[in-house]
């Protein structure tokens, strides 16, 4: 039983930034939660409040039924009593202690040695933190946090201090290590790929508020509103009007174009969210196909991004397609080429436009 975290925190910082975070995380189903959002969204501040390092002005935090903070009853447990391990962005290893003594710092007798071995750090035991690599420092920090046997682990951008190659390698190791340790974790990140690779559950934070929380794939596929869609990197977020509704299908009017989607019961002003990889590009003219959602247009630009390519189309409406670099080469796509864009009805996700409708799911 990993338990549940309930957090409702409000705070006004000296900088004028205000934070109002309502969040419930069911750790039973989802051991690793990602707190995702752009820089300056207040993610680190919220993490520090959970750890007991910063104090919210109002609200309450409970973990596994234990009251960590309650402004109305003047309860605020110090970090020592919460047993929430905190992994700092730059790891905050004690520079005057060896790797072994860092890990054993708050561990029960014998535990330190155990974690030193489990994390493959035995060879570095007598080294000082300043003389080992960033990836090794990260492992030491994680081993130190876990050796103290925390009830909850908070990780602040754990991979951001690493170089790109190490980051990719470490990402999967990190998830494995967290799952093996079996400690419920919250990871702060602003990197989409990291969020997908690390998390089971995801909370999207923008401007000090949690806009949406849910299973990672759910949040990516069905963003709750336009703001979340843009935040999680949906390439096409298009303001739309519902023109018709029949047989479980919606007809959306997006500028001059019309697209059909599955009727999810939305009404009023909406946005059509279409992921770039769900937009297929074809050289065939529109008339010869019976597929729905086929739009004629032309290529505006082709940008290669490693194995993928980002193709910007003008189909009366701007559309971005993400296809493999290989298919760009095969189709010999060039700017101004006439093409058609194909989007499955199930790939058009309709979300409310209004930003006030931001209740976390």
């Amino acid at each position, binding site marked *: 039983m990993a338990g549940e975290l309930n957090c409702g925190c409000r705070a006004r910082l000296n900088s004028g930034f205000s934070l109002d975070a309502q969040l419930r995380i069911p750790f039973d189903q989802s051991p690793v939660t990602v707190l995702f959002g752009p820089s300056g969204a207040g993610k680190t501040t919220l993490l520090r409040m959970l750890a007991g390092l910063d104090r919210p002005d109002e609200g309450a935090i409970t973990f596994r039924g234990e009251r960590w903070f309650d402004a109305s009853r003047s309860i605020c447990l110090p*970090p020592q009593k919460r047993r929430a391990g905190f992994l700092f962005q730059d790891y905050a290893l004690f*520079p005057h202690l060896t790797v072994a003594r860092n890990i054993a710092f708050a561990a029960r007798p014998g535990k330190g040695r155990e974690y030193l071995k489990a994390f493959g750090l035995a060879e570095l035991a007598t080294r000082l933190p*300043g003389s080992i690599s960033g990836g090794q420092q990260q492992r030491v920090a994680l081993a130190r946090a876990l050796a103290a046997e925390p009830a909850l682990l908070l990780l602040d951008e754990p991979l951001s201090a690493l170089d790109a190659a190490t980051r990719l390698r470490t990402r999967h190791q990190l998830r494995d290590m967290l799952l093996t340790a079996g400690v419920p974790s919250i990871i702060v990140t602003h990197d989409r790929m990291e969020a997908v690779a690390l998390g089971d559950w995801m909370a999207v934070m923008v401007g000090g508020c949690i806009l949406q929380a849910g299973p990672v794939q759910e949040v990516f596929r069905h963003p709750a509103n336009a703001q979340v869609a843009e935040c999680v990197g949906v390439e096409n977020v298009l303001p739309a009007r519902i023109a018709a509704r029949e047989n479980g299908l919606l007809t959306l009017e997006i500028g001059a174009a019309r697209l059909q989607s599955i009727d999810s019961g939305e009404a009023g002003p909406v946005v059509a969210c279409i992921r770039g990889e769900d937009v297929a590009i074809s050289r065939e003219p529109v008339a010869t196909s019976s597929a729905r959602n086929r739009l004629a247009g032309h290529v505006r630009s082709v940008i290669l991004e490693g194995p993928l390519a980002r193709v910007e189309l003008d189909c009366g409406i701007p559309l971005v397609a993400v296809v493999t670099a290989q298919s760009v080469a095969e189709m010999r796509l060039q700017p101004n080429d006439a093409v058609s864009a194909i989007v499955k009805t199930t790939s058009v996700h309709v979300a409310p436009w209004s930003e006030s409708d931001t209740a976390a799911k």
Partner: protein
Amino acid sequence: MDYQAIWLSVRLAASTTAILLTVGVPLAYWISFSRRRWKFLVEAVVALPLVLPPTVLGFYVLLAIGPHSPVGALYAKLTGGMLPFSFQGLLLASVLYSLPFTVQPVATAFAGVDRRLVEASWCLGVSRAATFRRVIAPLAAPGIATGAILSFAHTMGEFGVVLMVGGNIAGVTRTVSISIYDQVQALDYGAATETSLFLLAFSFAVLAATYALQRRVWAIWPAN
């Protein structure tokens, strides 16, 4: 050379340093970590001896510990003795006079300890006191050593406050600098030269040691 005066100065400086470490280190900790708005007032009071003429400081200390003052009366009641013109009175004045020489380097060293290391220790479940002992103190050790050395050296050479509070009683309050003054007054330049040379060499050695500590010529823990 007046060995009696040198020995007295060493005893006074050692006692002053010991008291300052027990009083000054917690005070420095408070100055470094407190978020109270009126903290600057305490900082100003601690720094006063740096700019106040020793005679002024000595004068007030003398008033404060006189037999008619509450402190003096209490001391007389407890011990039957008097503070002015005694070693104990001199010690009290020296502690006040050298306070900034301990507090300032130590507070600077505490402030230089990365706040996240302290928070990391707290989040590992380690108490505030143990965090001080295991993280803050070792990392601030050069600063604490500097504070102790400077206080010792400063007390060794003090003159004005001693004259005001302690007077010039051989074996009780006659320190090295008073002894040099006496020797010069008695036109005994030979003895004055010897004693002065001793103080000069001592002061130079102390300052060299302090700067070496700060530059980590002898690192207390290896630099990264």
